[in-house]
């Protein structure tokens, strides 16, 4: 395990040193930005700054432009988070052809202490997450605020693990909560149906 992590870290280091052209970190992807103003229910109004597993500093508004499936987790979680991530992956697999590549997946960590950029990067590799996924870490206050907005309760226990509600949220292209699935191992059907009901996302711009 340890050598694997070390090699992943080394790999991450290489990526930082010599950017590989085709590797486009999702958080740095330019989404098509609609002209209309955000509604006052949009999470993309948040001013907080987050750091992605690629080391980019972003505001959540960078995700605007296509729906997002959002989960909160921490990388050392032994029980629930792997299931949440698996559930989100099964949503990704269940997307109809018309939605492939038009839905983003966002994971935000509770663990501001241990989930460094490197830890998130290693997690992406370990879980073989596609380029549609964004992994973010943030300040403790900002994590608490985002959790509050998503209706997720959590607390750290004596071992440094987190107890947390298990919620997968669908945000529309403008960052409004349109659907939430609570509990583990729910069928992907309902979430996919919620995504299908959303207006079609504008065509993605080709890579600049």
């Amino acid at each position: 395990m340890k050598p694997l992590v070390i090699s992943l870290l080394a790999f991450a280091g290489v990526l930082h040193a010599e950017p590989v052209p085709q590797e486009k970190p999702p958080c740095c992807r330019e989404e098509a930005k609609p002209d209309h103003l955000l509604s006052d229910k949009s999470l993309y109004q948040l001013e907080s700054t987050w750091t992605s597993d690629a080391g980019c500093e972003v505001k959540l508004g960078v995700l605007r432009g296509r729906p997002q499936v959002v989960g909160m987790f921490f990388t050392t979680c032994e029980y629930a988070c792997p299931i949440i991530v698996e559930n989100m992956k099964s949503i990704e697999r269940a997307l109809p052809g018309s939605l492939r590549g038009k839905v983003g997946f966002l994971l935000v960590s509770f663990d501001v202490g241990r989930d460094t950029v490197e830890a998130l990067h290693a997690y992406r590799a370990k879980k073989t997450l596609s380029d549609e996924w964004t992994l973010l870490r943030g300040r403790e206050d900002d994590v608490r605020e985002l959790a509050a907005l998503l209706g997720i309760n959590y607390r750290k226990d004596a071992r440094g693990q987190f107890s947390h509600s298990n919620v997968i949220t669908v945000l529309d292209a403008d960052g409004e909560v349109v659907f939430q699935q609570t509990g583990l191992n729910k069928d992907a059907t309902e979430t996919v149906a919620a995504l299908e009901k959303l207006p079609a996302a504008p065509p993605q711009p080709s890579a600049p």
Partner: protein
Amino acid sequence: MRIPAFIPAVAVALVAAAAAASPLVPVPAGIYRPLFRGGNDAKEIPVAAFRLAIAPVTNGEFLEFVRANPHWQRSRVKRLFADENYLKHWAGDTELGPGCDAAQPVTWVSWFAAKAYAAWAGGRLPTTAEWELAAGAGFTQADGAKEPEFVRAIARWYGTPTPAVLPAAGSGRPNFHGLRDLHGLVWEWTADFNSAIVTGDARGDTGLERQLFCGAGSAGARDASDYPAFMRFGFRSSLKAAYTVHNLGFRYAKDP
């Protein structure tokens, strides 16, 4: 015997309330023992020394805040940050109106609004551990549980409906630290109100649900006699950050 001694202090506090935020008093470091715990939660949570406002924030103080920060006014606040009842007891954006006293604790405020006020006042919201530690002090000693008079007094309030007209903030009897109205006036937001986990939790802590909602629950709790703590736990776990409630206000804290 002590009552006459603090009447002038109340008068001073009320006069001050109209102009400036409530003063803070130091709360020494201590140990918070959560009422409900999952299998892996710490029995004791050390709390560092901090300062806490003597009284909850008043309508008058909150009015100054919204004047200085127009985006927190009733007609301008974003729905994401406060529900449609935000400050509904006021007459207007910057007007309390006849039915609303400047000295009363402000209510109908969301967690976001409370957090923004606290930051504006140069502080922050207290954590649940800090709040509970401060509120656990009795009238005459640091551990209120050892003071039958205090235990009876707070049990009385938690068993009494909120009065239609709220008394002024800061009019309650001060506790050991000099803090007023932690019990007996309004519920208060804490920074991590959403750390109370009742359902859908990660690792089998759903026993908390049983602990909270059934009579059998008290068997799993630290101190079955601490009924008010049950109520606070249940109340916090029922809240969402944008909610506003007629008897929910806040006070702010600062680091020492």
